[in-house]
């Protein structure tokens, strides 16, 4: 098991796509969370989503700002990482190479999930560190107080971010196992995250009560609710307090476990082509 984990970690670390995805995550996070709002505030621009005031970009709001991107674009990127990590074995035909070395399917799969969880933690920590640097720079530039969240809030935020990011990574993994490919799972995953979830929230839920109720059980709205509970700005796409933070954390955790288990079950039962 530890051999499989170390092997998966080595593949993930040496894969250029992993670093590219991390770089994109950080750039998106920096640009949409700090750069654009700060430029808007500094330039006095008026328009949609210009209600973010300077205090919202300061270190005090680090947790909420860092979690804000997870329901949509950061989550999408972690989902892609999950697909690449598992689906790559189908694309390159390397399942047979790996399994011929002796580990069981579930050992390899568990190694992948652990490596993905580690990668998700790295992504979340990186977003927090970059957010801290950006917030500190803005505070220094604007001569604002450097008030940081307390350690408990910070740890809770990092934990929640890790939980959400890992859940999206597991969704990527299960899609890759189910479809035994890379391109289709990435495409379907992104369509779900970026299009279907938003359509349900913006169009279907206000019209139909049962859709609004069903939404409360879906992974995206629960991730958004958890982030909202931890202070993510309400104007961020995907962030909305549709359920309580505690319930949202439980539902996200349940999805994480369900995605991981379903992927393992499918992998165990099917032939390796």
């Amino acid at each position: 098991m530890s051999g499989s984990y170390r092997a998966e970690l080595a593949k993930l670390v040496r894969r250029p796509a992993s670093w590219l995805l991390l770089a994109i995550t950080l750039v998106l996070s920096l640009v949409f969370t700090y750069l654009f709002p700060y430029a808007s505030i500094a330039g006095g621009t008026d328009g949609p989503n210009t209600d973010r005031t300077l205090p919202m970009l300061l270190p005090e709001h680090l947790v909420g700002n860092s979690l804000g991107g997870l329901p949509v674009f950061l989550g999408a990127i972690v989902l892609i990482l999950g697909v690449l990590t598992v689906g790559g074995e189908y694309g390159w035909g390397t399942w047979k190479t790996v399994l011929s070395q002796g580990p069981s399917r579930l050992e390899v799969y568990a190694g992948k999930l652990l490596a993905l969880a580690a990668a998700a933690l790295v992504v979340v920590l990186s977003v927090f560190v970059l957010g801290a640097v950006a917030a500190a720079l803005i505070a220094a530039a604007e001569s604002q107080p450097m008030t940081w969240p307390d350690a408990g809030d910070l740890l809770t935020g990092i934990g929640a971010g890790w939980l959400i990011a890992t859940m999206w990574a597991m969704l990527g993994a299960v899609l890759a196992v189910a479809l035994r490919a890379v391109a289709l799972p990435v495409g379907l995953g992104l369509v779900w995250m970026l299009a279907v979830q938003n359509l349900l929230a913006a169009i279907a839920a206000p019209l139909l009560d049962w859709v609004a109720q069903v939404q409360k059980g879906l992974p995206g709205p629960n991730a958004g609710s958890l982030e909202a509970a931890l202070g993510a700005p309400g104007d961020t796409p995907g962030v909305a307090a549709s359920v309580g933070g505690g319930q949202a954390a439980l539902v996200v955790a349940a999805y994480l476990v369900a995605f991981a288990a379903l992927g393992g079950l499918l992998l165990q039962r099917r032939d390796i082509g």
Partner: protein
Amino acid sequence: MNLPVRTQGLTKRYGGLTAVRDLDLAVRAGEIYGFLGPNGAGKTTTLRMLLGLVRPTAGTVQLLGRPPAAGRLGGVGALIEGPAFYPYLSGRENLRVLARYAGVGPDRVALVLDLVDLTDRAGDRYAGYSLGMKQRLGVAAALLKDPRLLILDEPTNGLDPAGMADMRTLIRRLGAGGCTVLVSSHLLGEVEQVCDRVGVISRGRLIAEGSVAELRGAAGLRVLADPLDAAAARAGELVGPERVRVVDGGLELAVEPERAAWLNAELVGAGVAVRELRRRERDLEQVFFDLIEKGTTDVR
């Protein structure tokens, strides 16, 4: 008898297609076993079932005494249906990753790279490897665990003649060292040179099994003589007409080659001019085609 590979009634069906049908395979310890068959005969499906990659519809598999799905494939090395590695890693890095799965130390990586003569290019990215280099890396990966049983699917694919000769030497050396080798191939000459025993599969069924000599059958004599009719008649009188066949303008006699001098004297004594008289052995290719044709007919 110690049988590192044992299948009983092994069957794999995909919907209405039966890829492997009631296959009983027995590979003995220490032997090099050739698994022959035309494309689509079911060789790779069988090997995949041996390794637990494909689940049989029916039947059982025992590898080194236990079913492959029961746990780790300890003591088994395999190269199945061509090499497949991570293109962004070098050959050496690929093997190091696989060594972690296999639970073997990095010292084995250097050793197996040397065994397949790939040390000089081990630092290059796999994506830049030629087909032959990829194949050698695949064999190196199969050897990582210092296996007691090695399963190789078409190991010489993509190799140049020198590489093929090296591969044969390596397989022989492994066999001599006590490793049991199951090698599938469609290259009959290769199998003939390397294998102790051969199994022939056609349309998913094992249609023949034995040593190369057994499959070839007993040697006989081929005679070119004039006039052919007289030669055939006299040969029939001497050895029995059921042992004489006229093939391609000559006679094929199912008699011991040691009787050549006696036969020559008898034919010449009967006024037949003998132009050529030589030992006749069916080559494996002829045996193979005969078996496949017979197997196909039987299956129909």
